[in-house]
């Protein structure tokens, strides 16, 4: 399989603190790759580096074989690298329908269109409706995001990402804070992603990690600690030690 997303010795320092150290990660097309690690291991920092929110102190990022290390966040999105946020990042005054349609428009490079009303594009409306239906947001699609209950906002967080038709999707703790009863829509949506979409999942919920991913990387103190198939990582004594809090911290 072709390598879609790859990092080469990625580093990020905040003053004296090394948040990311020599991370070299390879994601093949269609991968279901999980990134796990204790709190503060630098998982979200890594996502921020991949998406361009933060500039790395050193190293390189390649998407589909071309260097994207210096590209602005929106340029990476236009190449298909889309993320969700651990803490909801939504548009408070817009409705779910507007949010999703907006992402669909930008994906089609229609976002700068200033004459035709957004609803005139049939494909955008149909795509948006489909995503809203799949994520159980159709019944609230005309309500302002600010007044939606948390579970719906969490679904919208993912709906906006899906509307961008990603080729690589970075999911930062998608079910964080979602009550047990409301997880199903999110899990179903993740399971229904097209097989050629590459997914990197950050998650603390090990049941979800082991059911969704087929490959796992473990990040500790900003560095890759272990990587392998689910079985390999599950057997790894060092990983168990880290999760039991027995590893020497350096």
């Amino acid at each position: 399989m072709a390598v879609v997303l790859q990092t080469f010795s990625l580093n990020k320092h905040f003053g004296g603190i090394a948040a990311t150290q020599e991370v070299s990660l390879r994601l093949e097309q269609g991968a279901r790759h999980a990134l796990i690690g204790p709190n503060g291991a630098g998982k979200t920092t890594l996502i921020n580096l991949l998406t361009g929110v933060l500039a790395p102190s050193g190293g390189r990022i390649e998407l589909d074989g071309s260097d994207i290390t210096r590209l602005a966040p929106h340029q990476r999105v236009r190449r298909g690298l889309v993320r969700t946020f651990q803490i909801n990042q939504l548009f408070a005054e817009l409705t779910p329908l507007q949010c999703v349609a907006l992402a669909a428009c930008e994906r089609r490079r229609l976002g700068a269109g200033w004459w035709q009303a957004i609803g005139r594009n049939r494909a955008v409306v149909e795509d948006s409706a489909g995503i809203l239906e799949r994520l159980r947001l159709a019944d609230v699609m005309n309500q302002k995001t600010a007044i939606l209950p948390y579970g719906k906002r969490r679904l919208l967080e993912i709906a906006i990402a899906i509307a961008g038709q990603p080729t690589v999707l970075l999911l930062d703790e998608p079910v964080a804070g979602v009550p047990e009863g409301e997880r199903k829509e999110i899990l179903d949506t993740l399971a229904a992603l097209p097989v050629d979409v590459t997914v990197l999942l950050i998650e603390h919920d090990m049941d979800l990690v082991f059911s969704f991913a087929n490959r796992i990387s473990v990040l500790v103190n900003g560095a890759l600690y272990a990587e392998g198939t689910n079985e390999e990582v599950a057997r790894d004594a060092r990983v168990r030690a880290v999760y039991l809090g027995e590893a020497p911290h350096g």
Partner: protein
Amino acid sequence: MGLEPTRRTIIDAASASFAQASRWRALELAFWLMPIAAAFAFQRHYLLLNEIAILGLFALSLDLILGYAGIVSLGHAAFFGFGAYGAALFAKHVHADPLLGLAVAIAAAAALGLVTSVLVLRGSDLTRLMVTLGISLILFEIANQLRWLTGGADGLQGVVMKPLLGSFEFELNGRTAYLYSLVVLFGFFLVARRVVHAPFGLSLQALRDNRLRASAVGIPVNARLAAIYTFAAAMAGAAGALLAQTTGFASLDVLAFHRSAEVLLVLVIGGAGYLYGGLIGAALFALMHDRIAALTPQYWQFWIGLILVLIVLIGRERLVRPWSWLAAARATWRKPGVR
């Protein structure tokens, strides 16, 4: 609800929702009949009506950057004044045709907007307030210094316009002036209305709400901000040009700080983010100014200040709909602690 709505009904509902958002409402049509009716009803007040139309256009332009894109500005008069001087100078030295002068002023203000947009892209709201204020102060002093060109503190006198479209003289009673300003205002309003319902306008609201997420859905935040800032500058320039052309005069006053403050005040009175706020605010402000100044010529700003404080503290919603205040109070009373 037992039945799950099907994909088809959701698509239809989504289409209907978008269509409803961009459709002309009866209330809007009624709104635009008012300035036309005013042209017949208040034939002795064309000058005041003209002032309202110009102020409305100016406030509409601020609404695009403040209400939609979330860019705060304390120096919007920079573009108004640039357009005013541009139109006055063009009429005096190049050509006195109003439409040609308007086009030149719009282009000049747009160019200034494009150049200065770079400065408002970064930083916090406070930075933007200071930067926009700074730019307008700089322009004010430049105009003050260039006496040979602008007339300095005396202003640029004797701007005589040719008849509009070659046949409508700008009479003393201001009828042509008002109709001219009204048509230009309506033209810009139509464009602004298209813009805010198009993907571009939606992307502005998105980046106003959350820039981080906006860039994460592929919105080139800086390019969009620069575009709307430039368009708003062009519009403010048009308003300034209308003032210079219809009054035959441009003075330092068009660049003064109080103009920037006034247009912000107008938008706060009318409400930002729905296009009509600037127009309603302009009418209310100009009428209040006119009435209060007639009663207490020296102290009219006292009343304007008081009204501003009331609007901001009490909230426009509660002033316009006092009953909503009561309802909200009752709800809070019943469920203390629930927000």
